[in-house]
């Protein structure tokens, strides 16, 4: 019964509206079309202005609600600072145009509503005006394009010297991270070696000596103020490494590596105080639809001081040793085997959590 309550009310309202409309149509036929139109013109003209005023108020209110409190904290990356500025400039320019055109639109509608004594002004064209509003937008856009291109080439170009590299691999539905280890070079990968030996879910070729010191981690840690370049892979479908706080994003495309780079500016701890949110974390959001678990494809980035980072990375164990525990100099065979199993179970566990 309760389920039916709402639909019944809605239908009742619709029936009432319909009856009123029907009645008003009869009235307008009786009154004469011209008179009825006059009345509805007045009402609609008034509503136009009311909509404009209330709409502007609503926009202001929405701004107050979201802009200050939730949105656009300082960019967490050095490169993002300039992009934020450009964003603000673009918001300002488009905002002005928006205000002018919307106000004119609704004001004209109200001001020039049909009146008996009014004659519309026959004004078919004016080339000067056309030139004016071809020229001004063109110039404004040229400026925006110039800045846009500058930043575009900057952030898609090469990172500064001394950057670190991290390989990030997307799969349905999660991220894997690989650090190149001491030598700064990643070991080769070969898809044919997938899960050979078991647990090698990144298909690393362990015959390549450069892979022996590569670290595979479940968390992504970054030192603050050091440029980092992500080398992005995807194993199955297209994913996207979305880093809203760092103002960066790049698709992960199967078969083709892509890259992005940025320089984190604040540690996670600093951001917690800045945002006033004790639970703050940097998140990697998958931004390219990748299947039913798309919404759960979350990664966490921990930005920390150089010292903390060094301490963390020192604790990580090369993946090689967990694959081949007998090669591990510290010979912790049992522990290593456990890791293998865990690695194997990760995708399954994630799949289960979605169902």
């Amino acid at each position: 019964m309760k389920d039916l309550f709402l639909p019944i009310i809605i239908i009742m309202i619709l029936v009432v509206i319909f009856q009123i409309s029907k009645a008003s149509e009869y009235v307008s036929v009786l009154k004469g079309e011209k008179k009825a139109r006059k009345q509805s013109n007045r009402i609609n003209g008034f509503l136009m202005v009311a909509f404009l005023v209330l709409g502007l108020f609503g926009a202001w209110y929405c701004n107050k609600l979201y802009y200050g409190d939730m949105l656009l904290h300082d960019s967490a990356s050095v490169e993002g600072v300039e992009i934020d500025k450009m964003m603000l400039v673009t918001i300002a320019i488009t905002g002005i145009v928006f205000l002018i055109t919307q106000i004119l639109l609704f004001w004209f509608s109200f001001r020039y509503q049909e009146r008996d004594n009014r004659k519309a002004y026959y004004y078919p064209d004016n080339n000067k005006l056309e030139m004016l509003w071809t020229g001004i937008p063109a110039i404004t856009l040229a400026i925006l394009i110039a800045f846009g291109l500058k930043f575009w080439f900057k952030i898609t170009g090469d990172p500064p010297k001394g950057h670190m590299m991290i390989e990030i691999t997307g799969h349905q539905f999660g991220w894997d991270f690989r650090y190149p280890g001491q030598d700064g070079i990643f070991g080769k990968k070969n898809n044919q070696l997938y899960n050979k030996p078991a647990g090698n879910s990144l298909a690393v070729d362990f015959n390549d000596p450069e892979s022996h010191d590569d670290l595979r981690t479940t968390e992504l840690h970054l030192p603050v103020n050091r440029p980092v370049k992500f080398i992005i892979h995807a194993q199955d479908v297209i994913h996207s490494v979305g880093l809203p706080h760092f103002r960066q994003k790049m698709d992960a495309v199967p078969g083709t590596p892509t890259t992005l780079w940025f320089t984190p500016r604040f540690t996670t701890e600093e951001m917690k105080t800045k945002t006033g949110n004790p639970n703050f974390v940097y998140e990697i959001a998958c931004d390219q639809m990748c299947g039913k678990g798309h919404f759960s494809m979350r990664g966490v980035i921990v930005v920390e001081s150089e010292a903390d980072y060094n301490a963390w990375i020192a604790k990580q164990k090369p993946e090689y040793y967990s694959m081949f525990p007998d090669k591990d100099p510290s010979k912790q065979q049992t522990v290593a085997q456990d890791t293998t199993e865990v690695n194997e179970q990760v995708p399954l566990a994630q799949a289960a959590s979605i169902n």
Partner: protein
Amino acid sequence: MSSVASLHESELQHAGHDAQHEHHQQSFLTKYIFSQDHKTIAKQFLITGIIWAIVGALFSVLFRLQLGFPESSFPILEDILGKWAPGGKISPDFYYALVTMHGTILVFFVLTAGLSGTFANFLIPLQIGARDMASPFLNMLSYWFFFIGSIIMATSLFIQTGPASGGWTIYPPLSALSDAALGSVRGMDLWIISMAFFIISQLMGGLNYVSTVLNLRTKGMTMTRMPLTVWSLFFTAILGILSFPVLLSCVVLLFCDRNLGTSFYLSDIIIAGKVLPHEGGSPILFQHLFWFLGHPEVYIVVLPAMGLASEVISVNARKPIFGYVAMISSMLAIVALSLIVWAHHMFVSGMNPFLGAGFILFTLLIAVPSAIKVFNWLTTLWRGNIRFTPAMLFAIGFVSMFISGGLTGIFLGNAALDIQLHDTYFNIAHFHLVMGVAAFFSMFAGLYQWFPKMFGRFMNNTLGYIHFWITMVGAYLIFWPMHYSGLAGMPRRYYDYSNWESFKQFGGMNKFISIVVIIVFITQLMFVFNFFYSIWKGRKVREANPWDATTLEWTTPIRPGHGNWPGELPEVHRWPYDYSKDGKEFISQITPVGEEETGPHH
């Protein structure tokens, strides 16, 4: 001159003559089902479009329920949807199917077929003074191919594994591998087949529109005497002819990848624990091909909307459209530019930055003709004598939406900013405003305006006013806040945001939006009711030209038969925008130019 064949006259007249002869013996089947009359075909497109619009909008209501109330369950959904909503909560698989179908249906079936299919068929012959389309038979086929396509798409909703669920852009490998998503098992094949039929339908329609506009204009109807509606539909048809075939190539290759084991779009894939043998293809190639259609498609949607709005504004402001030639040339510029900017949808796909720079340049150029159009509409309103018919309200609403949605395009076309906004709610707000709501507003404007011509009756005005105001306010309430969540990076196409530290703060906003969506949806149902009710019960049209308009369609009888004009075709003497000229309220296009008339436009 051996083979002097004066085909032309007969060509102009043939449709009418044939129709006149057959008029009395038409059965129900030839009159309403397999009709070759452009007006009936237009109505077929329209009503099919309306049905699809309800379905597509209903889907959005369903997934908005999940987005707005992620922790609630609605037991009624399980009764209706069965396994797709276990426990009254939509499953992620079905959620993505809904999202995909919502996009596909609205972009292709409603805003392409429903909008330009309806109005191109209805208005082109009537407004240029032709008996019918150049090829009424192909025109009929065009509808029936669309119909078959839409039946196939509808079938895919009911198959075991569900319809396609890879997003309306169907990016492979997600759409190519049946292990990647439930919708990619068989739903995707049906999607592709359905789309192939749809493309053929569009092609036949488009060729017909173009050759009709070129060849069948009545005497005196020069190209620069055509109403802007015809111009916009003409350009739309050209865009369709040039871009839809590329979509065909694109999806046919995808079909091969899915079913024949080729690897056009696939390379180095490990899925479900298996290493696939595909090698050498590139998923980005698909995106290039798709957006080569996909971007013009946006203008296929919005150009007719511009044309309809221009015409409605001019008629109801009782003023000529300002800058007629500028309006045409800006549309031409939009057509040309829209075909060369496709890759701005792919700025974060890993595209080469230098290539990206070219696309930034072309993309932002489009803002110029768009700006010209907006200012011209504003100037048309200036010092007019505006009648607020429901059609006019929606046309003004269109301009407002076009401004709001268009300006955010400047953000998205600028790659440095697009990186942050790509695939977020900002993007959703942008394209829903500019090509979703705006195009719908124009479609409504067109329907209220030409309903009397279509059915010989008026729609109820009061319901129209209520429809407009709730929709207008609702559209802004829905899409305005989305800009904010988008600026904060909230990704689109998420099933649930509650696990995300960065986005869960927008839960309240999502709930608010969902409630507004439901109200707006119910209002649209009210419009649909008004539409069908008025077909049979609306106030009758008593005069041939109820809006005091100048264009040719109002010189036909109130309910024109096949062939449109009972006698000779009218001859045209002036452009279509002589409103309030020389002290006259309006001067029809068929009125010869007087000796003492002023102005250059005839």
